[in-house]
Structure formats: structure tokens, C-alpha cells
């Protein structure tokens, strides 16, 4: 039912914007907020309901780096690579996590869809360098050990949650 709920939200988003093609960008923003990425079939649907070619929607969706067409993990880890954080070794941090999660070579999301690892240019938390954000939560002065511990904690929590929910069924 989760997917259905999301899809109905997309219909709502499109209607709320009056099915107006000039509202494409706010529509895509809202859709991405719902899915955390822009699935291809949803973009086709958006194009259809706005009466514009899918190629145009694809063009806009790939033009702005704000939008992503690839699914993201449940936990989006962003490591700041602004000047301050870079100087404080944020790339070492990135490397540690990328090895730990078995990512790299253009792969940003773990196979179990739990984590996505990205870098950003300045989170505006330079006083806390190096900084890392997981979903909405900001972590300052992160060492490699500490980052690894945070990840482990999430993995344990998720495993626990999984087994709980399967017991309920």
C-alpha cells in the first residue's frame, strides 16, 4: 500500500499544480520529496498528465543536480567536502565509509538499499569540520572510527527492526 499511497500523492501534486507544464520544476521537487528520487515511470506519468513530451521532462530532471533519477538508500550519508572539511580530511572519511559499504566506481548506493554515500560542497557547518549529515541529522568533527561506529549502529538497529516485524506477521 506504501507505493499506492505515494502514487496517489503524485496525482495530488500534479492536480494541485493545475496540471500546468510551467510548474514542472516545483512538481518534480515535490515528487522527489515523496520518492527521494525520480522514478522513470513516474516521470512518464508526470509528462502524460501535463501533456508534454517525456523527453522534455527527462531533460529538466537531468539538468538540475538537485534531482536524481537513481533510487537512494534509506539512509543518505552526505560528507562535506567544502574547503574547511576538506582540509580536515573529509576525503579520508569518505574513503573509509565507501570501503566499509562496498561502494565506489560510480556506485553510490549499497545493494540492500540501506545507504547512499555522497559528497556535498559545504554544509555550512565549517566550525564542526569535518561534517557529515545522515538524512537530517548533522554530525560534527567526525573521525573515521566514529563514522564507522555510527554506521554499525544503524545496521544493528535495522536488523533488529527487520526481525521484529517478521515476528509480528
Amino acid at each position, binding site marked *: 500500500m506504501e507505493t*499506492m499511497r505515494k502514487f496517489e500523492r503524485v496525482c495530488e501534486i500534479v492536480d494541485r499544480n493545475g496540471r500546468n507544464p510551467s510548474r514542472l520544476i516545483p512538481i518534480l521537487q515535490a515528487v522527489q520529496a515523496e520518492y527521494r528520487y525520480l522514478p522513470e515511470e513516474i*516521470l512518464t506519468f508526470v509528462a*502524460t498528465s501535463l501533456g508534454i*513530451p*517525456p523527453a*522534455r521532462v*527527462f531533460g529538466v530532471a537531468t*539538468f538540475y543536480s538537485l534531482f536524481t533519477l537513481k533510487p537512494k538508500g534509506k539512509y543518505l550519508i552526505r560528507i562535506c567536502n567544502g574547503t574547511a572539511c576538506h582540509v580536515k580530511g573529509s576525503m579520508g572519511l569518505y574513503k573509509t565509509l565507501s570501503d566499509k559499504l562496498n561502494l565506489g566506481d560510480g556506485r553510490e548506493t549499497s545493494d540492500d538499499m540501506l545507504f547512499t554515500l555522497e559528497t556535498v560542497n559545504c554544509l555550512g557547518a565549517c566550525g564542526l569540520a569535518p561534517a557529515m549529515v545522515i538524512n537530517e541529522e548533522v554530525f560534527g568533527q567526525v573521525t573515521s572510527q566514529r563514522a564507522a561506529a555510527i554506521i554499525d549502529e544503524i545496521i544493528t538497529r535495522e536488523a533488529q527492526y527487520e526481525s521484529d516485524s517478521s515476528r509480528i506477521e
Partner: protein
Amino acid sequence: MKESLYITIDNNEIPIDNEKNLLEIIRKAKIDLPTFCYHSELSVYGACRLCMVEVDGIGLVSACSTTPASWMKVKTNTEEIRDMRKIIVELLLANHSQTCPTCPKSATCQLQALARRLGITKVRFKSQARDLPIDDSSPSLVRDANKCTLCGDCVRICSEIQSVGAIDFAYRGAQTMVIPSFGKDLNEVECVNCGQCARVCPTGALTPKPEVDQVWKALHNPRKVVVAQIAPAVRVALGEVFGLEPGVTMSGQIVAALRALGFDKVFDTSFTADLTVLEESNEFVKRIENNNNIPQFTSCCPAWVKFVEQYYPEYIRHLSTCRSPQQMFGALAKEILASDLGMEREDIVVVSIMPCTAKKFEAKRPEFTRDGISDVDHVLTTQELGRMIEEAGLHFRELEPESFHLPFGFKTGAGVIFGNSGGVSEAVLRYLTEKLTGQKRENYEFTSVRGEEGIREASLTVNGREFSLAVVSGLGNARKLIEKVKSGEAHYDFVEVMACPGGCVGGAGQPVFANMEAMRKRTKGIYENDRMLQLHKSQDNPYITELYSKVLGEVGGDKAHKLLHTSYHTRKRITDEGMMLSPSSGEHSVEVNVCFGTGCFLKGSQRLLHNILEYIKVRDLGSIVDVSASFCFEKCDKGPVIRVGENIIDGCTVEMAQEAIERETGGFLQSEGRDHG
């Protein structure tokens, strides 16, 4: 009297007469300012910056996007401008694949021409060429993104003129590309194969897909009889490849050239165009009598047919069921020649010479294939025939003219004017006015349907009944017209549509032409050709009469239907996988798939889906029913459409959906003995 205003261009006073931009005035002053992304038919993009000129008091501006004013003093040839142009062209070359000698666009490439004109002998920048895959999925076109300069001409013609929008810019910065949506192949999206993008592409990034090799192979095979058919528009354009003016009719030399290349028989598509006139007019008379599916739309243009199939499924019934002249010829040739010559169908190879890239697609449609053998085996564009003639080393202009073979080489002028927008309508009028009145007419020209505008209307009273016609070229215009018909704002009895502006003379398979003047000359050439011929009305063609009496029987009769008519189908715009909305949890499940294509969406699939899900919740069927949405079951005229298990239900209501779900799930409920405890 209004005094005319002048502008100074390189010290000359030039009058301003309504030119939209500086570029047009400069060209009027007979200075050929280089441009890359400017087409007078399209919106101004101003991206290439090649048209930079200096305006006193302002400095450098791009001429294509500057409105002329009388105070302006313009210089087009300063040292600064010349340097800048060179840099721009060098930058374009640095981004470009370096395979010019083997590029199909080689002789007509505008980038090469510019490099030569500006005297560029080396590129001072490091090559940034990328190694992107070539897309040759389409039957009509080849896309090589490595040669794309991002001028956007193709994007604009596809969306502005054709209202299709199959290709667009995507990504940004150094990654920017022109591609179909989601990076799919061209044959998986809504492209109608008109090729207009390839016509305006200045380089070899979009080109017609060649079939020259296959044709040589057939010609060299002694077991095959290879026959050619030549479309009307080809005869007034092929000469351009060999330095002749546009519009000069070269039928005799074309026949001679084809014979020299090894074709066994050379026929004329204008013959089957004459045949189309009889079949299509009689179909029209029947529809008028029964007041059925009016307006009748022409169906000669395969790009237009695909357009209707994709965007206006509810109007498919309005398309004439006549095959296009190309396909009528293919069907007749395979049927009649095979039996006349005592050969198998597969040993007769039919090659069409067409001004068109969409005809390549049409020839491969399954409707026109019998027992795995296509009625038309290969389609060459005018450009490709030019290349074969060059390859064979023939002196085209000096060839001794030869005549077409009979019977399919004999045509009237009515069959020739099919090459112009308005031609089919005029040919039909030449027939109908005599057929309906039973009287012969002296004058055969109907100039009211001729002209350059993209939508032309005419009305005509025959035997006391008024008929209204519309002649349309360009699919964007066709869309406007259908919307008017849909809303009831306009009414027509007969509508002719050609996808290419100006009709087939402006087809994408024709020799590359730089300005609209060439088109005008070809159009004129076609009408002159009509005047030079002995007969002008399809009904007067003695070989058509003979064909009916010996082979086809009645006009519109059974045999004619089998060979000369077809049917069209709704079609998806884009291939997709659909999306799972509510997966079942059990192993056995019933699939319920709701169409969310445009047609169904407009007819309320969203509500229907909502109600189905409610129903599934209430009946507690969530664990055994999979609900998904997909785009288009290709039954858009009967939306909303859903699929339950194997059954497709069109015009679906909530009740129908519920009933179908009950029926499909009933079995499971019993066999698994599931209870709701």
C-alpha cells in the same frame, strides 16, 4: 506614404522591410553571414554565436537575436569578428568526432563547409571528443551523438514544427546531450520517423539510415529480378546532387541511371498514386453517403499515420484505409509480376526510391509483410540513389533519357502532383467532380488547394452539395487542426495531411537544401511536370482501367481490398515497464493492471484505480491481488482500459472491474480454502 527606414551595413545603406532580425537584413544585403543554429522556420536560439557582428555604440551582438533599428551602423567583417568566428569553429571541431571522410554527411556537412570557408587548417584546442554509442535502432534514422554540436535545430523542429518532441537536451555542462527520453533508443519512443531533424541537422549527428549495401547485393544476385519504383518528388530533386537547379524534372535520366545500375524494371509510384485516387475517392463517396467517419483523412504519409496512431487513436477510423502508393505498388508487384514471370514472390525484389525516411519505416510495418516477405524490400532515399549513381561513376546529366516500363510506369499528372502538399486533394477533386456529375471537365487545375501556408482550407460545390477540405503540412499544424475538429470549432469532409512542410518535395530523404527557395522550385517543377504530361486525371489512365478489368475487378471490390487497403492500430508512444503499486503477499496472485496512458488518464483511470483499491481493501483481497499501473495497452480509443489476469477490459467501469476481480479470484478462494477468520 510611409518613408522607408535604412540601416547601415558595412557602409551600405540597406532598407529595413519588416525583417525580424539583423541577420535577415545582412543576408538581404547579399552577405552570407555564417550561422549554425539559425533556421528561419524555427524559433531563435542564439547559441552558436557565429553570427556575431559589431554595432557602433554597443559592440558585439549576435545578429540572429538582435532587432534591427535605423540608427544602427553594423560591421560584419572586422578582425575581432573574424578571429572570434575561427575560435568558435575550432571549439566546435574540438568537441567533434574526427571521422569526416567516412561520415554520410561528408559532402553536405555545414561544419566542414564552415571550416573550409573560414580557412581553418588546424584546431588549437585539445580534442574533447567522447566515445558515445551510435543509435541505429530506428528503421529510418541513425543517431551519432559524437557528431552533435548541440545547436538544437533538431530539438526545435521536432517540437515546434512537428509537435512530437521525441528528442531533447538532457544533462548539463560537458555532459549535455540531445537524446530521446530516459536515454532510450529512438525506435522505443514517440518518433514518427519523418526525418525533419536529420534534414536540419548541420552535421552527421542525425542522418537517414542507408540501405545502399542491401540494394547492391540484390542487384548483383543473378537469381533475383529487381524492380524499382520512383516517387513523384524524387524526379524534381535528384538533379541537385549533380549540380542542377532544384525543380528540373529528370525522370528520363533517372530511369536510364537505374537501368545502368542493373535494375530489371523501372516503374513509377505515380501509377499507384493514380490508383490511390480511385480507391480513396470511392471510399470517400461511400463515407459521405453513409455519413460515416467524416472527415476522411488521407493515409499516404506514414509519419502522419503513426502520429494519429499515437496521439489521436479515436481518429484512426477517419484515416483512409487505402495503402500508400508505395505499398500499393509493392503489393501489386509481388502479386502480378511474380505470376507473370513465373517466379516466387521472394525472388522479386522491390526497391522504392523515395524522398522520405518514414517510408523506410512503413515498408517494415507488419501489415505489409506476407508470409515473412515484405511487399517492399528496400527503400532508398533520393540522396542514397544519388550516392549509388556517383559510386557507379555515371555521368547523370548526360545520360540519354529512357522511358518507364509498362504497365506500372504509365501515369497521369494527377499521380505526379502527389509530391506537393495539396496534390492528393487536387487529384481527388479531378476525379470526384467528374464522377459525381457524370460530365467530363475541360479544366483540370484546382488552384484553391495549392499554396504555401501550413493549413489551407477550400470548399467546392459539386452537384449541389458543398464539400469542405483542408490541406495541412507539418504535424504541428495537423495537431492544431484535429484539436479544432475535436472541439467542434471546425468541420471538414476531407483532410489531407503530409508530415513534411510543403509535402514530400520537402522530405528528409531529398538532397540537403539550404533555403526555402529550393522547395519552391521543386513544387513548381512538379506542377510543370503535370502540365507536360498527356493526361491529368487518374480516371483517364488506360492502364489503370485495364488493371481493374483484368486483375482487380471493381473499384473498392474484394480483390482491390485485399491488395490495396489495410487497417491501422493504436500504438504506444514509449516502451516502458509499468509500475507495481500494491503487490500481493501470497504466491498465487491475480494481476490487475490499470492503464495510465494519456487516453485512459483523461477518461478517468485515476478514479477507477482508487475505487479498485478501496474494493480490494473492503473485500480483504490484498494478499492475492497484484495491482500495478502501466502506460498504454494500445486501446486508447476505448479507455479506461484495465487488465485482470489475461482479460483486457475496455471502457471499464468500477462494477466491471469488481466483477472481473471476483471472477478471477473466486477460483483461488475456493481452491485454497482460505477463510477470513
